């Protein structure tokens, strides 16, 4: 199956600064694809090129087989774009806002009314239909902006930091909404800094730094490929010398690279092994009589991956 979003050797320069340095992406239809990277990594530039708002300095980008530079009008008809920072028209009601964008896409009057009702239901703003846009909360405005990107029923959604500035509840609602959109058949390309949420939401990710894709694919696949270690945290019912002895016991395991007692009494292990090795470590520790209260990874897989591949002193890595 050919990818619905594809970039090849995408480059963007701004006055001598290389914002995107040869990015190759391949996203299959129906995926929720996460773009992960630190500030200034080039995520927004990639999304703006795909949204036809920027021209690449070199390389190709295609959506649904159409070039974003050669056929921008047609590309705009199959994608919906939600920028990271967006404003709202002060003097418009919620339904008028959607009606305006539907008109921009040439949707006939008969279809607009029904579509606006459906979209407001989808983003849970039906009761705000006649409210002025500027009176909505930030989370509601985010959902309305997402609804605006859906007025023409696009195949692909480009969402740039859609959860930024939202409170936890609004983030959960947005995440559920994106899942619902995936069920509805949309391909979603989303950039975010909130890694645990992306990990839970995305089918695939690309880790971007300094304009390059450092790793791409399913989180589990990338983890396997890179074979990086993990940070384990172990809490024990021990104190003082007994705790130090337990730390030494962990440190003697061949897969444990380091063992440190934190201020709160937790033992933090730098662990080289995989999931099976960590299960073995837990079993042997319990068998050795260590009173373990909890045994867990310090961060999510994606966070660890992210920190691993975007470390300032990282080795040059072949883009996946």
């Amino acid at each position, binding site marked *: 199956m050919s990818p619905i979003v594809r970039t090849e050797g995408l480059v963007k320069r701004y006055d001598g600064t290389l914002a995107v340095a040869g990015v190759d992406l391949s996203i299959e239809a129906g995926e929720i694809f996460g773009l992960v990277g630190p500030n200034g990594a080039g995520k927004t530039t990639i999304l703006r090129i795909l949204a036809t*708002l920027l021209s690449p300095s070199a390389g190709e980008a295609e959506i649904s087989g159409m070039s974003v530079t050669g056929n921008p009008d047609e590309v705009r008809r199959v994608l919906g774009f939600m920028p990271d920072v967006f404003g709202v028209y002060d003097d*418009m009601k919620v339904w008028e806002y959607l009606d305006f964008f539907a008109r*921009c896409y*040439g949707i006939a009057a008969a*279809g607009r009314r029904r579509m606006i009702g459906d979209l407001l239901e989808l983003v849970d703003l039906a009761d705000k239909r006649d409210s002025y846009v500027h009176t909505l909360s930030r989370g509601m405005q985010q959902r309305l902006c997402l609804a605006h990107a859906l007025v023409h*029923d696009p195949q692909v959604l480009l969402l740039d930091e859609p959860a930024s500035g939202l409170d936890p509840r609004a983030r959960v609602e947005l995440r559920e909404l994106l899942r619902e959109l995936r069920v509805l058949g949309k391909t979603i390309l989303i950039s975010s800094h909130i890694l645990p949420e992306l990990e839970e939401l995305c089918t695939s990710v690309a880790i971007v730094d300094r304009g390059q894709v450092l790793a791409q694919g399913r989180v589990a696949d990338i983890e396997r490929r890179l074979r990086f270690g993990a940070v384990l945290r172990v809490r024990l019912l021990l104190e003082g010398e007994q705790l130090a002895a337990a730390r030494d016991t962990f440190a003697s395991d061949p897969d444990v690279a380091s063992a440190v007692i934190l201020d709160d009494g937790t033992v933090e292990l730098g662990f080289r092994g995989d999931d099976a090795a960590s299960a073995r470590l837990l079993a042997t520790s319990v068998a050795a009589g260590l009173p373990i209260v909890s045994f867990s990874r310090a961060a999510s897989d994606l966070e660890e991956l992210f920190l691993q591949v975007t470390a300032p002193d990282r080795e040059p890595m072949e883009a996946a």
Partner: protein
Amino acid sequence: MTDTPADAQIPVTPAVSVRRPPRALPFLRTAGGVAAIGAKELRGRMRGRRAFVIVTIYLSLLGGFAWMVATLIAQSYSNGFGGSSAAFASAAIGQGIFAALLMLETLQVAFLAPSSTAGAISLEREKQTLDLLVATPITSLAIVLGKLLSTLVYVFLLIAASLPLMAIVFVYGGVGPEDVLRGYLVLIATAIGLGSFGLFCSSIVRRTTAATAITIFGVLTVTIGTIFVLAFWAAMGTFDNNGNRQAGPLGIRSPEVLAYVNPFVAQADVLCGTDTNLGSAWCSGV
């Protein structure tokens, strides 16, 4: 809503709550875009009582001004300045009201139209709504035309609202319907021309404040600046023995093209075309 693991196989169904619109011809697409932008802008501008209150105040001021002009001219005739013919006095009052209203409306249009359009594009940038608009299939031409026309519609509304007031001049005489028509055509041309200039400034300058300042400076240049240059040229010019005007200070003829872009000169030309003229010497200068 239910939790769905990211990797789970989800049955993909067509989402559609709307039918995808058929592709329109380029002209129809642009027209549709203009209509979309126009409807949005007018909806905001005409919402509530604000627009109608402004029209009411505008007409009240215009009516009061016309009454004052009529009273002043009538007073001057009753004091014996300007002749004793009642018919001539009536025509003079009509022409006076016509000239006063037309110049006042030109002043209003010359500043209102460009200052309204000066923020049309730059405000979209400042409010960060331009990206949302540009990411739609709407053409740049449709955005520009939609912004221009929706702004001008309000200016045209003010112009049209003044028509019944202007009809007072027919009661006094001295002004024909064709004069009024010519005057209003100049008003419309002024609104379109200077409104387009404001929109141009708005699209090339990022900040609305700067765009408005440049626009107003441009309008002042076109109105006061051109008259000043022409007056300067006339003052520095010399006449030969036969009374014919010679070349100006730079050794070339007066740059008459400057007068072509000045809406007040155009309206003066309209006024000089009325039945009895506003002083032949002044009109010959125009």
